């Protein structure tokens, strides 16, 4: 039987997938012998909305950038078996490369199953790892298998997962908790959202195996409040898992009992830090705690707790089913398995990318991502969000490996990969992140609260054209002080975007400070507007629209801009029909 399946993750919906869905639904009649369904995020976000046509289990046709008005063509093609009507929206072989280049473990079900159907998950071998664990493995066996796999935390720091599980297992205490960090604070990253939306049962199953290993009776998922669809799909999945005996008392008759609940965050970046997350779970302001004691000894409600990232848990069932050694066979010496990245920014093909560790940044950005769009030149890639850094073109052959990436000054991070081209100002980028961390600093420790604020002020001054000699050195000095003195990871890593941009793009800082010039022409205060006499026809349009009367000139004569009056509003450049207004 033919099946029409629409990708309805958040990206798909934002691009109009639900409108396409109802348009197709309205055309289907009782005589039709095909079905209509939905799936989560297929990962090719730049091609959304995506409509897949399956013949039985085989993907027969993938339609991309589908609009409502294509609904009729799609339905009649499926009816007739002649797909020439949809040739124009059929995926090209170049775009198909995007998925072919990937190795999907954490994302293995994304875009293939209906996330709201537990049957779909079970048919895809779902809950078989849990059965194996409960039926044939001791908690120690599980921890050992994870140790063999070499799995490290995917939330950013890359700490060995087995070690944390083992510590929580060995802590004394009746009530232990297993917590999932789905706060996904890095602005510009969406791996965890896509995973929960598209394959919630994988998270539940992975967490159950973790709970069994450490001896937890309750599991809590802390999800960012901005992810309503993830929360909804996870709620549906938890209810279905409970009904089918995978959650609750005496799971699958094994004697192991475990409950699960969701806690929606309320919007605070620092709550991604594990001890702040615990404070927030307890209903308080998300202020980090001093470590030690680590959560494994004293976490949620002062009980032993284990916290892992969504993607970390999403790898667990695969490891149990295929063996730790198979996982460890992928990657580099100290980074095993695969990593999911959210590839965005000035990239041609943006979306979710999962590749084995050990590939290079170039493989991801220029191979899978297809390089920079609009014919521009690559400048840098930002990894690790506000805790990470910008990596320049000269280091594009760096392999994806915790140590190799840390050596650049950036970090692996949770998977945000924002690509920038020549039109992005790197000082502006550093300021962007410091604006963010200064705002999100919880205020508990002085170094972070005041240090990030002072750094932000200096950066603002530089982009406003008021930078002073010595500002770069001052920023470097402050960076080190904040790194050393801050209480938690937020402050300890906040200077990274500044330090890496100074390290690799010092010339841009110097141009701003010494020449009052923004090489990327992005900083408004440093733009100098001029009119190209060869292109100006003297139409007076710009002069009439100038709010400060800074443009002088008569009809049919070349106009000039009085830069002392110009407020850089950009009106003239936008209104000129001859492209005569230039920015220097």
């Amino acid at each position, binding site marked *: 039987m033919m099946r029409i399946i629409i990708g309805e993750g958040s990206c798909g919906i934002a691009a109009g997938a639900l409108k396409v869905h109802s348009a197709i639904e309205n055309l289907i009649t009782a005589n039709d012998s095909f079905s209509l369904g939905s799936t989560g995020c297929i990962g090719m*976000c730049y091609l959304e909305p995506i409509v897949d046509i399956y013949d039985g289990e085989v993907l027969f046709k993938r339609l991309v950038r589908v609009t409502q008005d294509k609904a009729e063509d799609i339905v009649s093609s499926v009816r007739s078996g002649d797909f020439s009507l949809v040739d124009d929206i059929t995926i090209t072989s170049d775009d198909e490369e995007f998925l072919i280049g990937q190795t999907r473990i954490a994302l293995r079900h994304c875009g293939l199953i209906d996330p709201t159907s537990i049957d779909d998950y079970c048919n895809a071998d779902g809950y078989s790892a849990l059965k194996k664990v409960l039926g044939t493995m001791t908690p120690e066996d599980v921890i050992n298998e994870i140790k063999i796999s070499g799995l490290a935390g995917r939330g950013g720091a890359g700490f060995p997962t087995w070690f944390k599980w083992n510590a929580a297992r060995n802590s004394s205490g009746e009530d232990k908790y297993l917590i999932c960090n789905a706060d996904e604070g890095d602005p510009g990253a969406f791996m965890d959202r896509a995973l929960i939306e598209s394959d919630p049962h994988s998270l539940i199953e992975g967490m159950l195996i973790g709970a069994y290993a450490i001896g937890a009776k309750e599991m809590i998922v802390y999800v960012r409040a901005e992810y309503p669809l993830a929360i909804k799909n996870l709620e549906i999945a938890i209810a279905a898992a409970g009904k089918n005996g995978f959650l609750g008392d005496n799971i699958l008759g094994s004697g192991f009992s475990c409950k699960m609940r969701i806690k929606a965050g309320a919007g605070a970046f620092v709550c991604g830090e594990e001890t702040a997350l615990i404070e927030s779970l307890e209903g308080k302001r998300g202020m980090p705690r001093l470590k030690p004691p680590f959560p494994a000894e004293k976490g949620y409600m002062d009980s032993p707790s284990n916290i892992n990232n969504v993607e970390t848990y999403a790898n667990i069932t695969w490891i149990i089913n295929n063996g730790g050694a198979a996982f460890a066979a992928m990657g580099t010496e100290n980074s095993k398995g695969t990593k999911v990245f959210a590839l965005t920014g000035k990239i041609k093909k943006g979306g979710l990318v999962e590749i084995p560790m050990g590939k290079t940044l170039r493989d991801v950005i220029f191979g899978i991502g297809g390089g920079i769009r609009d014919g521009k030149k690559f400048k840098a890639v930002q990894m690790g969000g506000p805790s990470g850094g910008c990596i320049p073109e000269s280091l594009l052959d760096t392999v994806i490996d915790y140590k190799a990436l840390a050596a650049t000054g950036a970090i692996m991070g949770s998977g945000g990969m924002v690509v920038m081209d020549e039109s992005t100002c790197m000082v502006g980028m550093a300021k962007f992140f410091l604006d963010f961390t200064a705002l999100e600093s919880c205020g508990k420790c002085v170094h972070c609260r005041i240090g990030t604020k002072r750094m932000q002020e200096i950066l603002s001054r530089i982009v406003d054209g008021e930078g002073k000699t010595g500002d770069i050195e001052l920023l470097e000095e402050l960076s080190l002080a904040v790194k050393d003195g801050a209480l938690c990871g937020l402050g300890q890593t906040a200077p990274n975007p500044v330090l890496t941009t100074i390290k690799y793009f010092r010339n841009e800082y110097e141009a701003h400070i010494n020449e009052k010039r923004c090489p990327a022409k992005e900083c408004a205060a440093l733009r100098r507007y001029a009119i190209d006499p060869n292109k100006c026809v003297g139409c007076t349009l710009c002069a009439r629209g100038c709010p400060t009367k800074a443009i002088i000139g008569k009809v049919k004569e070349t106009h000039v801009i009085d830069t002392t009056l110009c407020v850089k509003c950009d009106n003239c450049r936008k209104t000129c029909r001859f492209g005569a207004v230039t920015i220097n």
Partner: protein
Amino acid sequence: MSCNCKGPKSDLTLLNNIFEEISCVPENLITVLQKAQEIYGYLPEDVIYHVADVLGAKPAEVMGVATFYSQFRLSPIGKYLIMSCQGTACHVNGSKRVSEAVADYLGIKHGETTADGLFTLENVACLGCCSLAPVIMINGEAYGNLTPESAVEVLKTIKEKENGEK
């Protein structure tokens, strides 16, 4: 402690359902405030005092939590809540110009509501639709690949619809 605030009086009985559904311990404070905000659209002062009373917390503690998290609002919002993404992907793709154009068009700043009570503008960090950057979300519906001009067009359409209904 009861509320001595001078602000408008809220119908506190609307909270009773929440207190039946969720156990009244300080641990559930954030969840209770989230549900309360769903009811009132924001957290009125008397609601904050009342929640403190019922959960056995100090009003200052409740206020502390309400001001810590960006989700909570202490003043009413307009009919349309515009969330303008300022995440990294949107920043790189020109979100600043989009939000400036929106703010200019509405004549308000980030965090403010228009005088006619129609629009509230909020800057947020990442809506999770980064591949459609720059993105704004209006009452939960996302608009992607915006330019300053197309963002203003979206608002114009909403405004026209509203004026037509009046």
